[in-house]
Each structure stands twice: as C-alpha cells, then as structure tokens.
C-alpha cells in the first residue's frame, strides 16, 4: 500500500544523515562529556560542536546561550518555571495566549494554581492572531514574563513575535517564544526577533526525538528545572544525551542547507493542497491565517464529520494525518486552539491537519487530493447531522 506521511507537525522522520552522525556516539565515543578522560573529552567536543550548530541555526550571539534539554516541553518548562521562580520577587504576573501548546499552557496553569502567580491568557482573532496593542495594555507593574508562541502547531498561524518582543522589551518584560514548530522549518533569528528566550525541539525538523534546546539570552537569570549535576553551566543537571545532542546539531546543520529553497518547495505543496481541498470539497472551514502561516501547515474543518473517523479512514488509504478532535486525545473537548478562533464545538470536532516537510513530494499531495473527497463523502453519508441538512 502507498504510504503518505503528512503528520510532520507531530514529528518527522529522522534524516538518515542525522542517524549516521549519531551512531559513533553510541558505540565508540560513548564517554560522559563531563569526564576528564579521552572518551569524555571526545564526547564533549561533539556536544560543543552541536551547540555551535544550533547557535548558527537561530543566529544566537554566543553558543553558551544554548541550553540542551529533552525536548520542546522541557524547554518551555525551563523557560517559564525557571524564570518565574528566579524572578518572583520582581513580580508574579505572566502573559501568554489562548492558543499555546500545552507545554506552555499547562505550565502557566501550574504556576497559577500551585505557585501563586497570576496569568493572562490573551484571546486571538479568527485567524488565531494575538493583538499587539491588547498585549501592551495587559502589561502591568507586576508583569515579569510574556510567553507567546511563534508558529501554531495546529493551525499554523505565525504570531507577530518581533512586534510583541519589542513591546515587552520597552516595558522591561522578559519575552519567551515557543518556536518548536518554526525552528528548522523557516528562518528564525533570535537577534532579529529580539526575544530573550526561545524553545526548539529536534524531532520537528528531522532530528531525533527526546532532545531540544532553550535559547537564553546572556544576562537572563533562571532557576534550573532539572536539579542535579553541574552540566550546562549548572542550568540543567543530568548526563548529557550525547547522541541526541549530536543528532540535534546535525539536524540544525542540515536545516540551514538551502533553507529558503526548502521553504519554497514546502509552501508550494501546501498551497496546492489547500487549493485542491477547497476546489473539491464543500462545506469546509479553512483554519489559521492564509499568509502568516507555517510553510507546511494545512488545516480544515469538514462539517458534519468527526476528526478521528476521518483519520482512521485516511489511514486505511495509507495517509497519516492528525486532528484537533477530542477523540484523538481522549478528552471531551476538541482543540482549545480551534475553539479560541471562534469555531463551534461541532465544527471543531471535524478538523484535519495535514503537515508537510521537504521529504513530501507533489504526487503525494495529488494522492491526498484524489482520496480525500470520497472519504469525506462516505463519512457524511454516515452522519446524522448531514442527513438532517440535505
């Protein structure tokens, strides 16, 4: 059976060259980078090279501004809890948005519920955008931190980070952005954006799972989130995940290679897929912003059907996709992101996310456009909601 992977927003295939770069660190250069001996020193060299590769990918000023973590979630936790706890004497108010990934949202909720912080969740418009002026108005005396994501993992909307960070800087508020979906998939320049902290995760751009990084601008003080050894200049305890870090470094290097060409390719595939769906299927809702959008993200709601049924039907045709449907997550409410953009529960249940990478090819897009209308039709024929309308 044909197999088409269009769930790159969930995770990506590890690039074969990434695995190749990692392999010697399993079997030969397996020392602990904190060790004095040769096995350790060689491993350390690899780790520091990887740090420079990540630095270059996001144009950080200094490799020491990169802290390696176990992924996007840990980076967000470290940025938010680590900063909030270290600076809580300056204030206890945090600003975020209603459409953040749970790695940010649940972290903010934890600070609110368990640690005495107050959090503002900025609403978004129908495209999923926060409003810069509204953000500015929300900043108060007590505000110490703002955390607003760069590219939305569900609907692909890219927030005006540069403008938001500028407002924050003017008001003396430290600004973190969860750029897990963006980094490696589009140009991201921390100096140009003017952010203080930025989270990234290797497995979203053909690196290995279980490794990520947090950029922390020099001078920004944090508590560690992993309390332990003196690794990462005492900012993150635990034996270095050498193989993962080498993989992240290699993925960062590969991502920089011809980035603009890859972005162009993916954007073209995305737009073809969007057009193909819009032209062939009725009663649909396009989600996210049409232009300020991650290169690989396509998201629609199909009225009268439920997302998980759609995913299963696509899977039977070999197409791997995802949905903000409640039933895929085992919760009762559908995606908080889709609800925040103003969709009803009923419509939000019927969402489909197709996420592309530069590994995808045009014929795969054609295949999806060929198969999807029949599947939607079959599921609608089964739906009591559709019948009642026709």
């Amino acid at each position, binding site marked *: 059976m044909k197999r088409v992977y269009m769930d790159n927003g969930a995770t990506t295939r590890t690039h074969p060259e990434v695995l190749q770069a990692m392999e010697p660190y399993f079997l030969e250069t397996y020392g602990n980078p904190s060790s004095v001996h040769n096995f350790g020193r060689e491993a350390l060299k690899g780790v520091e090279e990887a740090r420079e590769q990540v630095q270059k990918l996001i144009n950080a000023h200094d490799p020491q501004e990169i802290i390696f973590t176990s992924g996007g979630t840990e980076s967000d936790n470290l940025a938010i809890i680590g900063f909030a706890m270290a600076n809580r004497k300056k204030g206890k108010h945090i600003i975020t948005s209603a459409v953040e990934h749970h790695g940010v949202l649940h972290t903010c909720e934890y600070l609110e519920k368990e640690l005495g912080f107050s959090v503002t969740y900025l609403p978004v418009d129908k495209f999923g955008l926060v409003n810069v002026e509204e953000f500015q108005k929300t900043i108060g005396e007590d505000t110490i931190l703002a955390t607003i994501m760069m590219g939305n993992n569900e609907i692909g909307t890219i927030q005006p980070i540069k403008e938001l960070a500028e407002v924050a800087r003017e008001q003396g508020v430290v600004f973190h952005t969860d750029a897990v979906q963006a980094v490696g998939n589009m140009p991201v320049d921390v100096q140009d954006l003017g952010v203080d902290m930025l989270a990234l995760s290797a497995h979203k751009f053909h690196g290995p799972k279980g490794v990520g990084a947090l950029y922390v601008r020099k001078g920004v003080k944090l508590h560690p989130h992993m309390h332990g050894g003196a690794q990462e200049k005492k900012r993150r305890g635990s034996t270095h995940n050498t193989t993962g870090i080498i993989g992240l470094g290699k993925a960062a290097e590969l991502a920089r290679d011809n980035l603009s060409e890859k972005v162009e390719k993916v954007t073209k595939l995305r737009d073809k897929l969007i057009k193909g769906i819009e032209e062939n299927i009725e009663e649909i809702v396009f989600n996210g912003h049409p232009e300020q959008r991650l290169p690989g993200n396509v998201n629609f709601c199909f009225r009268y059907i*439920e997302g998980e*049924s759609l995913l299963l039907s696509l899977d039977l045709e070999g197409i791997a996709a995802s949905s903000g449907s*409640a*039933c895929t997550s085992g919760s*009762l409410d559908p995606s908080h992101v889709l609800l925040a953009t103003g969709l009803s529960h*009923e419509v939000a249940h019927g969402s489909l996310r197709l996420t592309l990478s530069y590994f995808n090819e045009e014929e795969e897009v054609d295949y999806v456009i060929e198969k999807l209308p029949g599947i939607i039709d079959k599921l609608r024929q*089964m*739906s*009591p909601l559709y*019948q009642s309308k026709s």
Partner: protein
Amino acid sequence: MYSEKVMDHFTNPRNMGSMENPDGKAQVGNPTCGDIMEIAIKVEENKIKDIRFKTFGCGAAVATSSMVTEMAKGKTLEEAEQLTNKTVAEALDGLPPVKMHCSNLAADALHKAIQDYREKQTKKG
C-alpha cells in the same frame, strides 16, 4: 489501539443508512461532546426486522453503532433490551480505556428507539 473487529465494523459498517417510515427511532448524544447516534427500527411480530444507524463520532462510535445493529437484528424487543453498552464493547473485543466513556452509547440509542416504538404503539393502541 482498536481491535480488528472494531476496525472491521468501522471500515464496513453494517446496516448503515436511513430508513423510510421507521416504526421506532431515536438519537442520543450531542454534537458538542462529539458523538451522535441515530437508530431506526422496523418491528414485526415483536421482533426487530430491520435496523439502520447513522453516526457522527469517532471510530469507536461508528463500530459500536454497527455492532449493536448486527446484534439486535432478528431479536425480540425484550432480548434487544438486554443488550448493554458493555456487551456491545465485549462483542468488539473491547475498546481502548479512553473510549469507554463517550463513544459507547450505541445500546442506549437502541433502547431509546425501542421505547419510541412502544410509545407509538401505545398512542396507536
């Protein structure tokens, strides 16, 4: 995640569709929670002669709907009323734990359809 039986019923749902002039009919669930099942029955000599379902919901919702129609067909109303969500799930070789709570309404829909039939009979009677 799902058993082979669930996937079989999801892929080839039995008795799916609408019915002209049903003797009893009911809908359970609501679109907010993401699951709606509609069941229609024809009754002859106190037996379920024909049955049809429509479902808006996840794979488990579709499969349980399909399975309950297959199990109910040909049974007397009293027998059909003995079917529970649990026996339906068991007939499908079980459902994932997260799916037990919301998508498992098919027997409820069937019972309501039978109830609807009985109420109509009473009115007629």
